[in-house]
C-alpha cells in the first residue's frame, strides 16, 4: 500500500444533516456533522438519547441517507445527500461491518454459518467461507461453539459471533451501536477491547455508539453529540 492510500481517512462525514418530516412536524435529527476517522482508529460516539448518534451511525452505514452532506469511505464518495454514488448494497457487503446492541444472529444458522453467510453473500466459495469463518471464531475465542445455534449461546458469545460476522469481509469500517448494552461490565469491556484489537491489528476503523463510560479508555478518540450536533470538545486517547 502506498503512503497516499495509507493516509486516506477510513471515513469522512462532510456537513451531514438529517431532517425528518416537513413543516410543523419537521425534526432535525442531525445538523451539519463533519468529522473524520482514520484507518485503525477506534472512535466512541457519546451523548444522551436523542442526540443523533444512531442517526449518524445509520447514515454512515448507508441505510439511512442524510438529507444533506456527503459521505466518503476509503477515499470513495458514496453518498451525496440522499443520492447514492455507488451500489449501496454491494458497498456495504464489501466495505462495512455492523454490530448492534442485540447480536441479531440469524436464528436458523449456527455460529459458524452466521459468519459464513456474510462471506458467501460476498461471493466467497462455501468451503473457503467456512474455513475463514472458523478462523474468525477462533480469533474471537468462540470456535468451540461453532456448531451451536444462537439460542444455545450466551449473550457474550452471541456478541462475539456478531463481531466475527462484522469482520468476515475485512471491512474498512465497522459500525457498532451500543454493542455492550446487553452485557455485564466484564463482558462489555471484553467486547470493547476486541474492537480495539481488531482495529489495531487489521487496520479497520471502528465507530462505536455507547453509553457505557466504564470502558472509554479503550477508544482512540471520543466524540460527543447533543441535539444533532457534534460538539467541538472531542478528545484524543489519554486526555480523558
Amino acid at each position: 500500500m502506498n503512503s497516499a492510500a495509507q493516509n486516506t481517512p477510513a471515513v469522512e462525514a462532510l456537513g451531514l444533516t438529517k431532517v425528518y418530516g416537513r413543516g410543523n412536524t419537521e425534526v432535525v435529527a442531525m445538523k451539519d456533522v463533519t468529522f473524520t476517522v482514520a484507518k485503525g482508529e477506534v472512535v466512541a460516539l457519546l451523548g444522551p438519547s436523542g442526540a443523533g448518534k444512531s442517526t449518524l451511525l445509520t447514515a454512515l452505514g448507508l441505510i439511512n441517507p442524510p438529507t444533506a452532506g456527503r459521505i466518503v469511505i476509503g477515499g470513495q464518495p458514496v453518498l451525496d445527500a440522499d443520492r447514492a454514488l455507488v451500489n449501496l448494497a454491494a458497498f456495504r457487503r464489501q466495505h462495512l461491518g455492523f454490530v448492534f446492541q442485540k447480536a441479531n444472529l440469524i436464528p436458523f444458522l449456527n455460529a459458524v454459518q452466521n459468519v459464513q453467510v456474510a462471506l458467501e453473500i460476498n461471493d466467497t466459495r462455501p468451503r473457503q467461507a467456512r474455513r475463514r469463518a472458523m478462523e474468525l471464531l477462533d480469533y474471537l475465542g468462540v470456535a468451540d461453539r461453532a456448531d451451536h445455534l444462537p439460542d444455545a449461546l450466551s449473550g457474550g458469545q452471541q456478541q462475539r459471533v456478531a463481531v466475527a460476522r462484522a469482520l468476515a469481509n475485512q471491512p474498512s469500517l465497522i459500525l457498532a451501536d451500543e454493542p455492550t448494552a446487553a452485557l455485564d461490565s466484564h463482558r462489555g469491556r471484553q467486547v470493547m477491547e476486541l474492537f480495539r484489537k481488531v482495529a489495531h491489528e487489521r487496520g479497520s476503523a471502528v465507530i462505536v455508539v455507547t453509553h457505557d463510560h466504564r470502558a472509554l479508555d479503550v477508544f482512540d478518540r471520543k466524540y460527543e453529540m447533543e441535539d444533532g450536533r457534534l460538539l467541538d470538545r472531542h478528545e484524543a486517547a489519554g486526555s480523558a
Partner: protein
Amino acid sequence: MNLAAQDIRHNLGRFALTALGIGLLLMLVLGMSGIYQGLVFEATQLVDEVGADFWVVQKNTRGPFAEVSRLPANLEFRLLAVPGVRSAQSFVAHTIQREQQGRPLRMFVQGLAWPDDKGEWLPLTGGRPLGQAHYEMIADQILGLALGDKVPLGKDVFTVVGVTKGMASSAGDGTAFFTVRDALAIQFDLPGETMRLERAARRHRAANQDFGRVQPELLERAGGPSSALPALATPLVSAILVKVAPGTDTAAVVATVSAWPDVTVHTHEGQRQLLLRGNVDRARRQLGLFRVILVFVSTIIMALIIYTLTLDKTHDIAMLKLMGARHSVVVGLILQQALLLGALGYAIAYYIGQWLYPLFPRRVMITPDDLWMLAGIVLAISVAASLLGIWKAMRVEPNKVLS
C-alpha cells in the same frame, strides 16, 4: 450454503405440518380431477367398449342414454340387408333397483345379443361369459355380487357367472349383463293381472281397427303372448348397434340408413359426444368449476402461508440486506421454500390419494395427464404464492434490524 434448507431444518416440525396441510388440499384438487375423469370415463365406457360403428335409435331421439328410445327388434334384419353392414345387434339398457339380502341393489341392465354376443369382450376379473340363453348374468364388482350368487329379478332367478371391473353407467351404477331376452323380461316384467288386462285391451284395440277386422287370425293372436305379436306388441329394444364390414365406407352406410324415415343414426363419436354433452355435462362442468375454485383457494392459502413464513423472517431478511445480500439471495430463500412446500405437498397428495381414492364409491381416475397438469398447477401456485412473500421481503429495509 442453502438458507432455505437451513431454515426448514430449524423449523422442521412446522414445515412438515404445513406441507401436510397443503398436501391434503392438493389431494382434493387431484381427487376432483379424478372424479371428473371418472365421470367422463364411466359415461363413455359402454359406448367405447361396445365398439359399434353407429347406433340406430328411435326417430328424433338422442339414443338410450339420453332418453327413451324404442325400436322393433326386427329392425336388426332390415339393417343386415343394407350393403356393407357386417353385424346388427339389439341393444337393451335400463336401470332397475331391487333389494338383495336386505340392501338396495341398483343396477344398469344391459342386454347382450345372444348367441352372437356372449360378453367375451367384457373386462372379466372372474368367471366366464354367458353360457346359455337364459338365467345367467355377468355383474360388475360395484354391485357387490360374487360368482355363484343367485339374484331374483322379475319372475326368474339369475346366477352370477362372471364379474367385471369398472363397468358402470353414466350415473355410476354397476352394470349387469344379461341376454337381450332376459333383459327385456326384466324390463317388462308385469304382474299376471296386468298382462291379462293388457291382452284383453289389445284384442279390443285390434277388433276396432281394419287389420283386426279383416284378419281374424291376427285378432286371435292378439290375446296371446307379446312376443308372438311383433306388430302389435310393445317396441322391444332400445337401439340397434351396427358394425360395418372392413373396407366399407361407414359414412355411406350411415347416409343410407339415415335416409330411412323411422330411425335416427348416431355414429360412435356422435353417441359419445351426446353422452358428454347430455348426461354428464352439468356434473362435468360443476366439477370443473369446483376444481378451478379449489386451485384458487389453494393459491390463496399457500400465499398466506408463504407470507406468514416471510413475516416471521422479516428481521433476518433485514439483516441479510444490511450485510449487502443481493435480491436474488432473499428471493431464492422465499421461492425455494415455496417450491419445496409445493413439491412436498404434491408428493403427499399423490401418495395419500393412491391409498384413499380406491375407497371412493365412484371411480376416481387419475391419468398421467392429470398428474402432469397438477404438477404444473403446483409450480404455478408455488411461484404465485411466493410473489406475496417476495413483495413483502423486497419492502423490508435494512434499518429494520435496528427496530
